[in-house]
């Protein structure tokens, strides 16, 4: 037993540098996905909300276009999205395979669409009275968004972000198909292709821990900011 544990630890130590490298690649993909979710997912989700019928910036055409974008991306099987984006990535980035930055492009696209929907839902949950209060004060749409909507929706925005980020982890695990690397790719290569089952399970446990960490951090922050 002790001997087995010692053997296992030795193997982990042997694979550790490669595992850490894979975690780093996952980190790069998650970083770009989260950044896109925040910088573009939030505005898209806010526009989805504001332009829908009965809302302060009602605009049927824009709302249709944004909805179509979000729906198409989200209903696209992710692996197909990855493949379909290859020519585009090669065009703008120079290469489409073999590094985690190239692999981040489809992650960014799915991140925007996924989080935009969460943002829209969070804003939909804000009581009508709050919007009416802003309008009675003569608030501009910009003020409504920043001083009312985001304030009241902040913890549900964070819960949604946590859920989205956990999906990003899952999406990132298949980026190995285009040589994007990452801890998921590591698990597949060592476990599935080389039958190093112990190393595969170690990688899977790392992925689970990463998800648990996101969940824990997200809920903690959401709870701290929720004063309802």
């Amino acid at each position, binding site marked *: 037993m002790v001997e087995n544990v010692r053997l296992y630890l030795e193997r982990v130590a042997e694979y550790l540098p490669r595992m850490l490298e894979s975690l780093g690649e996952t980190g790069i993909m998650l970083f770009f996905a989260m950044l896109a979710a925040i910088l573009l997912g939030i505005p898209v989700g806010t526009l989805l909300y504001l332009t829908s019928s009965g809302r302060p910036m009602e605009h049927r055409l824009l709302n249709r276009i944004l909805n179509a974008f979000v729906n198409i991306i989200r209903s696209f099987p992710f692996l197909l999205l990855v493949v379909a984006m290859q020519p585009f990535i090669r065009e703008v980035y120079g290469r489409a395979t073999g590094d985690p930055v190239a692999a981040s492009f489809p992650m960014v696209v799915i991140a925007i669409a996924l989080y935009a929907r969460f943002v829209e839902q969070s804003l939909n949950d804000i009581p009508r*009275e*709050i919007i*009416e*209060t*802003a*309008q*009675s*004060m*003569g*608030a*501009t749409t910009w*003020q409504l968004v920043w*001083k*009312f909507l985001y*304030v*009241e929706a*902040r*913890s549900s925005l964070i819960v949604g972000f946590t859920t989205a980020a956990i999906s990003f982890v899952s999406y990132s695990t298949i980026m190995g198909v285009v040589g994007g690397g990452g801890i998921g790719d590591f698990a597949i290569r060592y476990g599935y292709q080389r039958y190093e089952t112990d190393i595969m399970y170690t990688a899977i446990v790392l992925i689970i821990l990463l998800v648990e960490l996101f969940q824990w951090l997200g809920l903690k922050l959401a709870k701290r*900011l*929720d*004063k*309802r």
Partner: protein
Amino acid sequence: MIEFNSVSKTFQEITNTFPALSDISFAIQKGEAFGVVGESGAGKSTLLRLINALEKPTSGSVDVEGITLSTLENKQLRPLKKRISMVFQQFNLLNNKTVAENVRLPLEIHSHSVHLTVDEALNFVGLEDKKDQYPSQLSGGQKQRVGIARALVTRPDILLCDEPTSALDQSTAEEIVQVLKEAHKAFNMTIVVVTHDLPVVKALCQRVAVLEKGELKTILDVNPSTEPAENKPYHERAIEVLSNG
């Protein structure tokens, strides 16, 4: 002065058997405390919301200080809304902002050359010790005081109150009426109070319009109550209400 000229308002819904407001004409004088009473669904809120252009009339016009609201774009309405405050039945406070942040909010929406400080407004409603609390930590009456402080902080020319006491028990309601009454005295503004609760307008208003099914039935001058009910303890009022008549 607030003027309604043959104002009608119809909502595009199949279920409505009568217009929310039909052919309403009357005027509210500057500095007046004016009440609007009527049963639920009579059109009171709609009438109030026409004054700060949250609703637009289907026909007729609403003029505030000589300006016909329906001729203005949203952007042009902002300077007007800056001088009109509103107090709501459900208080409409932001739950994620502290009391002080809630009261400060209108000052962040427009810049005001003359206004109360947040502390002055909170002092006026007697909540200076609650400024760092969140609304969820307050009672209903305290929440409405915050709502009133938020309305007063801009020193409005017009204060609109939609059922300001209807979510409160009777003695708290009477306290809120007193706060509004003092505000009217102290700040020299026009107050329009909409409610189904007759004692509220009796205590607070000089004139009262009676609405029924969207029609203006009459406008009454109010005889001020001789005995302020709010001084009596709850059990005495209970005896009075339950045993008499």
